[in-house]
């Protein structure tokens, strides 16, 4: 019975508030997936190595005696020499290879991160919109993707370079803007199946706007394939970067990247092997680790599929 003063009501409200305040947290699907991932040894070790590579690439240069563009006239084409601080030797111009590998790794990582973020963002939004609206919008948007696929991306990159000059970051925003095509297709396919689920209909029935439905209900449920595909995109972009730098379209001297270093080291591998071994080891380790992480994520996010 509600009292005259409405005290009961106030107390109930208060009790409710308290109950809500110390309500235990639930286990979200993401937490579940992370827990499964943490049981996957290969993936955990790979994550550790990748984190280590990232830290070393960004902090390391401060502890290396030579700068990446600094020339040591007394040691040109020299193998590793611990007295002078050339721990990985020097190149034909007398620059310290360790410093260059660190800078190159840094550049490759930045490029990969920028291009991946761009391609994932565009791909997810484009694919989700196309799949959710369906019908004519969908066919139009997907035909556009088909056309883009048919264009050679080298042509696209050359146009970008002509337009914006040789700015590596801009260039890789451009690469990201091409890499999104596959992402858009994957996301569209996923969206088509998610939008048939009852919770989407429930959201529509309670008056949610299409944009809110896409952002609140569809995109969060895409995380599985998106995360997996993103881990596969990173190595792809690192390789694309190597190729473009080899053609002279990518990163420019004295800056460098893993791809540039490898393409410089490969022709002289027999006489100056240290010029190839350092960058190649980093690139191979990075690619292997990313593959293991991708595998681990796939298993962790889709436990039923195994």
């Amino acid at each position, binding site marked *: 019975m509600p009292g005259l003063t409405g005290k009961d009501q106030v107390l109930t409200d208060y009790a409710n508030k308290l*109950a809500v305040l110390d309500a235990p*947290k639930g*286990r979200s699907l993401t937490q579940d997936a992370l827990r499964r991932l943490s049981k996957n040894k290969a993936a955990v070790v790979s994550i550790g190595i990748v984190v280590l590579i990232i830290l070393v690439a960004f902090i390391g240069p401060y502890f290396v005696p030579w700068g990446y563009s600094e020339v040591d006239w007394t040691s040109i084409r020299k193998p590793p020499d611990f007295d002078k601080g050339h721990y990985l030797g020097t190149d034909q111009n007398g620059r310290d290879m360790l410093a260059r590998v660190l800078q190159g790794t840094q550049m490759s990582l930045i490029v990969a991160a920028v291009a991946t973020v761009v391609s994932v963002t565009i791909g997810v939004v484009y694919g989700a919109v196309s799949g959710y609206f369906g019908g004519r919008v969908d066919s139009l948007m997907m035909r556009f993707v088909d056309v883009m696929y048919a264009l050679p991306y080298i042509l696209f990159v050359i146009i970008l370079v002509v337009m914006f000059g040789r700015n590596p970051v801009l260039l890789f925003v451009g690469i990201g803007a091409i890499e999104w095509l596959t992402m858009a297709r994957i996301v569209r396919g996923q969206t088509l199946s998610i939008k048939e689920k009852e919770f989407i209909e*429930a959201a529509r029935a309670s008056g949610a706007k299409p944009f809110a439905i896409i952002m609140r209900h569809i995109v969060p449920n895409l995380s599985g394939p998106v995360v997996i595909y993103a881990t596969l995109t990173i190595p792809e972009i690192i390789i694309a970067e190597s190729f473009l730098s080899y053609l002279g379209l990518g990163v420019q001297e004295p800056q460098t990247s893993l791809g540039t270093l490898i393409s410089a080291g490969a022709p002289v591998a027999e006489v100056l092997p240290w010029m190839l071994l350092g960058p190649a080891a980093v690139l191979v380790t990075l690619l292997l680790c990313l593959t293991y992480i991708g595998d681990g994520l796939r298993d962790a996010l889709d436990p039923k599929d195994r």
Partner: protein
Amino acid sequence: MIETREPILKVRDLAVEFTLGSNGLFGGKKILRAVKGVSFDLYQGETLGIVGESGCGKSTLSRAIIRLLPATAGEAVWLGRDIQKMNSNELLDLRKDIQMIFQDPLASLNPRMTAGDIIAEPLKIHMPNIGKAERAVRVAEMMQKVGLLPTMINKYPHEFSGGQCQRIGIARALITNPKLIICDEAVSALDVSIRAQVVNLLMDLQKELGISLLFISHDIAVVRHIAQRIMVLYFGEVVEIGEAEQVTMDPHHDYTKRLIASVPVPDPKVEMERREERRRLRKAAAKAA
């Protein structure tokens, strides 16, 4: 007495057609008439049961009523306004006044959202002005009302049982104080014991809040329990509509008789007679065909 009041929902000759893609190079487009001219009235505080076998157009009818699907003919009038002609503001009001409860309790909840966020979503859409704390209190109260502990507010759908998930669905439907709730096979996926609990919860809430229910099911036994009136659909057409008592005890249409005959009865003797009756009806139907 009920008949003297103005119905809150008037459906007149509502029809829904699906255009199926043409098969083959020269195959013309096929048209599937899922709902063929359905008419009925629904009054405030009343429960209308809609029964019929799988594929007879029950879900299609309910989705056309709230304009999740376009109707091809006829009209549905909600509180005097034709739903097909509503502008976006009126439609938003309609979405607040009519809520739905779905068949699959787990699939109707976004797996990435907590129970609290799911229940609060309609509130965010229709009453964006109320603050976060107020919203949390309302959600907690609603959870209590449908028999969930408010301390479960931060749990995710997969941490609840099927019956609890359906209670979350009911809480989400009730949070905007709707005038009508459409339950599309809302209890069909639940275990028998939990089904009874949820049906009773719905009936209690309805009595308390004075809402109307459109209760869709292929199970005439459940419908008889909850509904005052029953409408029988057969291949998209109404074959019978009337008081629950009359439709179940004295069905006029053959199809209704068959539906009722298909409900198992605990008494073996009655069940035996039923089986006999069904055999006879089937034979008659076969002869007619």
